[in-house]
């Protein structure tokens, strides 16, 4: 029981949560760059998922990477931290649903997560595990970031009246 308590204390510690926040931010920016550079390949991957209707595929493919980029940037800098991590969690839930649907249908797809190589590695279950870990990090950031080492906190301090 004490071990569990200690573990909870560690994963909710503001410095550990800061680390989670940075990991998520860097991951999101890294994941977005290749998609931004190769919109056509990314659109093909979105098509392969066979979830979105045709007319939405390209619009989604050009907007999602930038939403990821902004969310990642805000997480790293600590701007609207709760909102950025809420968005990140929402995106991971969508990724988990999309990957599961295709995994159970047995479709051989490219996850399009980090690379837009049209024939990337068969990821499947590994990908789901990764998504769940990231979702967990995002949830921890939403609830326990405590506005620690964020740009918002810096501005709030500055705007406080001097004694």
């Amino acid at each position, binding site marked *: 029981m004490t071990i569990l308590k200690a573990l909870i204390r560690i994963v909710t510690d503001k410095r550990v949560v800061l680390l989670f926040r940075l990991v998520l931010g860097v991951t999101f920016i890294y994941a977005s760059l290749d998609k931004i550079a190769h919109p056509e390949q990314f659109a*093909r991957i979105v098509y392969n998922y066979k979830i979105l209707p045709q007319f939405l595929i390209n619009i989604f493919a050009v907007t999602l990477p930038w*939403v990821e980029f902004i969310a990642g940037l805000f997480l790293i800098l600590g701007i609207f931290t709760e909102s950025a991590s809420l968005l990140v969690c929402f995106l991971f839930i969508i990724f988990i649903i999309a990957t599961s649907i295709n995994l159970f249908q047995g479709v051989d797809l490219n996850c399009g997560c980090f690379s837009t190589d049209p024939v990337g590695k068969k990821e499947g279950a590994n990908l789901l595990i990764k998504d769940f870990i990231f979702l967990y990090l995002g949830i921890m950031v939403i609830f326990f970031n405590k506005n620690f080492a964020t740009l918002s906190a810096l501005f709030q301090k500055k705007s406080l009246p001097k004694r």
Partner: protein
Amino acid sequence: MPMLTQLKLFHGILRTDILLKTLGIILIGSAIGLTYNALSPGGIALKGNWSPKINSDSLVVPYGYEEGIDPPAVNLDYAMMKFQSKNTVFLDSRYPEDFKVGHIEGAINLPYEEFEEHAPLVLPKLPKDEEIITYCDGTECETSLVLARELLELGYKDVKVFFGGWQEWQKAGLSVETDN
């Protein structure tokens, strides 16, 4: 008590301002994305068609296939004829585990995903002027096409793609084999 804290936390996250900021991030990101796409030379049309298309020989080919530039596409009849004549090499570009379950009889596995690994074992045995037909699962996969492009670049002169692939071959009840 801990339950109450969690409830408070949950209530805290559903505050309107947090949700509005989340929506704001989506809108800012989307606006930048659309603008960047419009200005970037690599931008794509906002409305695209990604379904397989029909080429001039009435064959179903992937969206990215470029007639005249890419290796020629062949149909089931042609593949069957070449299979019977026995002087054409069939290269299966699917994963080894799929290949093992079943493939065109006599085909050689050269998974595009693991090209670097498998190519040194397969390619030295293939003369550059030999007729090669690549295939993967069916019209929804592209590894047969990318493998064929790669072979052309490596100097193979007679490379063709059978887009119907394993699905069409199997449906036609033609000779298959499994590796155990």
